[in-house]
């Protein structure tokens, strides 16, 4: 299933199962756009896909890549090495030839690139992207259309579903006006029909996905739609990369569902506005990326203390501080769990892939309502922007229609019962007993009155913590991939799910007794995880964060503290790039060596 073992040439006669295409150019040339279309095509052809892109450092664009991993079976990562490189410029060629596997194909613009390196059996194919496009659609400023020309080339080369691809182009460019669409289609056809003797033909094995309705999307979109499906109708945020596109989606979509999303003046206001809506009886959302999460810490701590439900999305990026805003990292875990002052128990979850972004919000909303506390979802820059194809969620099953519960509360209503889970009464609900409840961040008694009583503070602290202990007991224990015990357990959380699975297979291929597991519930950890880990000789926690002063990544730190299991080791990195499968395999090899 790995793309690395099989070269396209080798399987020329057989159908291809996997191919990794790296488009390298300048972001202005629309490489993201055609990469996205390839991703969308996968959704329509029962194929799997995972994409990866880099974002240029200036707003007006600059060198950038878009990598697409297409597969007939499961696709778990964006590809360690590329089968095909499309190089638009000399700098693209120079910077990315190394990413091609041995015997890979380098397709380049023969008018811009000089073929300088003859190495590792790489097949060079020069095509005059620029002039062929100009020929097809007339000379346009800024070489527009080249990308679509290349899409046509790729379509022919891999026998992609031409009709569906044309449909995607029509949807994308149709609204921009007739002329533009016509140009696009002409460019596409020119690429599709372009004759080059060099050009090999590959054919994909039919996709294996069985569901009739497949969609393709990035993670941020699925988080946004998941929120709506969870019954979230109110929220507030402040722009920050890579969180912004979620708030843009909510701002656009929520009014259709009768909801409101507020662009606040800053993150402090955003979390407060969301908390106001939650207090008012509508579970609400706020979100940001690292620096913004730091600014929300005080109010999140309030939600823990006042036991108000709240959804907080944090799309992690490279840190600390402004860091690497368009790179991926998983270094906000400890902040998410421990970032507020005092003992402020909250729930922290992380989705494993784009599809899971949808379902994790549904679970988060359910937990926030049940435990009446904030739930933080840790996504990351890679998940936010990459495209995957998967089955359309079944909304019959996965839909919560929000309800505002203003029913009269009985004589015994208390906003903070010591023995029971807190369920607030929103404003507007009548109190049978005649005395109206207060919600507060001061330590309080059961009615919400401030209380400095020592016994009360001890009890209330325990109450807020014990609901998480009770939850931990109910959480499903993480599934183990491959065997339930053995020599090696690879574990991770968030977007590294795919590469870790794949690394597990590779270690098996190498004869090691490896298994893998994935932590979806980061705080509290599911009860019984200790015992699970204890069944393995070595536990490797793979994370995209720093190994810190004591040599352990952030999840590893928590696991070690909870279980004191010295078999827990860390494989960490902070280069701002998603894990390659080989890096994980090497990490394990190095440890065992």
């Amino acid at each position, binding site marked *: 299933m790995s793309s690395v073992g099989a070269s396209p040439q080798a399987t020329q006669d057989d159908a291809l199962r996997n191919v990794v295409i790296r488009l390298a150019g300048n972001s202005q040339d629309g490489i993201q756009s055609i990469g996205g279309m390839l991703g969308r095509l996968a959704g329509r052809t029962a194929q799997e896909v995972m994409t990866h892109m880099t974002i240029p450092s200036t707003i007006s664009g600059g060198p950038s890549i878009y990598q697409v991993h297409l597969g007939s079976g499961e696709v778990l990562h964006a590809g360690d090495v590329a089968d095909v490189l499309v190089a638009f410029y000399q700098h693209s060629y120079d910077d990315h030839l190394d990413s091609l596997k041995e015997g890979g194909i380098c397709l380049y613009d023969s008018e811009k690139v000089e073929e300088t390196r003859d190495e590792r059996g790489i097949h060079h194919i020069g095509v005059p992207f620029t002039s062929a496009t100009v020929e097809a659609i007339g000379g346009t400023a800024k070489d527009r259309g080249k990308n679509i020309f290349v899409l046509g080339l790729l379509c022919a080369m891999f026998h992609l579903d031409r009709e569906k691809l044309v449909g995607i182009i029509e*949807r994308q460019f149709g609204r921009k006006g007739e002329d533009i669409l016509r140009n696009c289609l002409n460019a596409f056809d020119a690429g599709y029909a372009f004759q080059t003797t060099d050009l090999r033909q590959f054919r994909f094995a039919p996709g294996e996905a069985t569901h009739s309705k*497949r969609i393709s999307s990035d993670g941020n979109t699925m988080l946004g739609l998941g929120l*709506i499906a969870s019954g979230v109708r109110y929220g507030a945020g402040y722009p920050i990369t890579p969180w912004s596109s979620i708030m843009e989606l909510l701002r656009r979509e929520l009014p259709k569902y009768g909801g409101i999303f507020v662009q606040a003046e800053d993150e402090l206001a955003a979390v407060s506005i969301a*908390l106001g809506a939650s207090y008012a009886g509508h579970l609400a959302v706020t979100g940001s990326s690292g620096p913004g999460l730091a600014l929300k810490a005080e109010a999140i701590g309030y939600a823990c203390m006042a036991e108000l439900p709240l959804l907080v999305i944090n799309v992690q990026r490279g840190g600390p501080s402004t860091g690497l805003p368009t790179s991926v990292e998983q270094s906000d875990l400890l902040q998410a769990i421990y970032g507020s002052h005092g003992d402020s128990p909250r729930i922290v979850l992380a989705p494993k892939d784009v599809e899971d972004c949808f379902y994790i919000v549904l679970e988060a909303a359910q937990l926030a309502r049940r435990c009446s506390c904030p739930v933080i979802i840790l996504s990351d820059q890679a998940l936010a922007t990459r495209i995957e194809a998967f089955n359309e969620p079944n*909304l019959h099953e996965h839909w919560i229609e929000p309800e505002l519960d203003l029913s009269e509360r009985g004589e015994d209503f208390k906003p903070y019962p010591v023995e029971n889970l807190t369920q607030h009464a929103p404003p507007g609900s009548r109190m049978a007993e005649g005395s*109206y409840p207060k919600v507060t961040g001061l330590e309080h008694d059961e009615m919400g009155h401030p209380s400095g009583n020592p016994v009360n503070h001890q009890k209330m602290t325990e109450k807020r913590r014990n609901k998480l202990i009770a939850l931990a007991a109910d959480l499903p224990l993480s599934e183990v991939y491959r065997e339930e015990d053995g020599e090696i357990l690879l574990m991770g959380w968030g977007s590294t799910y795919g590469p870790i699975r794949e690394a597990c297979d590779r270690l098996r291929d190498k004869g090691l007794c490896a298994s893998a597991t994935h932590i979806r519930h980061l705080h509290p950890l599911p009860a019984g995880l200790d015992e699970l880990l204890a069944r393995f000789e070595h536990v490797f926690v793979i994370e995209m964060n720093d190994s810190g002063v004591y040599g352990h990544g952030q999840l590893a730190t928590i696991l070690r503290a909870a279980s004191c299991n010295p078999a827990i080791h860390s494989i960490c990195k902070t280069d701002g790039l998603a894990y390659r499968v080989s890096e994980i395999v090497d990490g394990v090899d190095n440890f065992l060596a």
Partner: protein
Amino acid sequence: MSDSQSAQPEEKLSKKQLKADHPTWCPGCGDFAVLASFFNVIQKLGLTQTDFVCVAGIGCSSRFPYFVNSHGIHFIHGRALPLATGISLSRPDQHVFVFGGDGDGFSIGGNHLNHAARKNINLTYVIMDNCVYGLTKNQTSPTTPIGRRSKTDPQGSADRPINPMAQLLGSSASFIARSHAAHVKHMTEMFERAVKHPGFSVVEVLSECTMFYPGAFDAAIPRKGGEFNLINEEEHDLTSTSKAFDLAQLEFPGKFGVFYQDERPSKNDLEQKWINETHDKQGDLAPQDLMRQKFAAMQ
């Protein structure tokens, strides 16, 4: 003020029904009068406990919600306005009242004031300005006059204070008034007008901190030799920002009354309008089908 949407109109509340915990304020604190005045207005307008909610940040004055027998929330320092914004936008059936001090509102919360004002969030905000930090025991506040000594200005405060009326005008608040806790009738009138204003309304009330800054506002109390000068609304054009700005420049204790009022759509109205227009466009698709449409476009 939002139109009360509660199903059945109810009996007016008695003072007794409105009272909750006995206030923890110091004897003589101006905030007692603000509370009394607030009770008057609730009674006068015939609001019941399911019609309104009290929101506050942190400070002596921000303890207000505990003393009102209604739904209430005591939030963190300086963020009462955004919290109230969340309530207001998501619950058009509720009158949202926000209470707080000069520190809470003009120091740590100053930016939220700027933005809630320009966005014209539908709520009423009462600022109990005692020109000092009460709860933390006598530090300089953003409205402390130059020369006053405090724990953080042992030599007398030197920074120019915030001019509340000018700041509110500068940030386009749509209803701005000023009153004095020693003048309960005036205060009650201001509150009533504020509540009736559609959109964002602010009343700054000079409310003496008897513990740390006694006598601060005597200059506007006739029985203490001061003058309580009202704005003459026959002469003052309530809709003129520049007239209001002139009033705001008067020497302490200045004038009292409504400085400015304009009626423009609140953010609540504007967002609702967008929702309505969207609904008109999309017809009555069930919410799930709306999302299915979205999914279809992602195929």
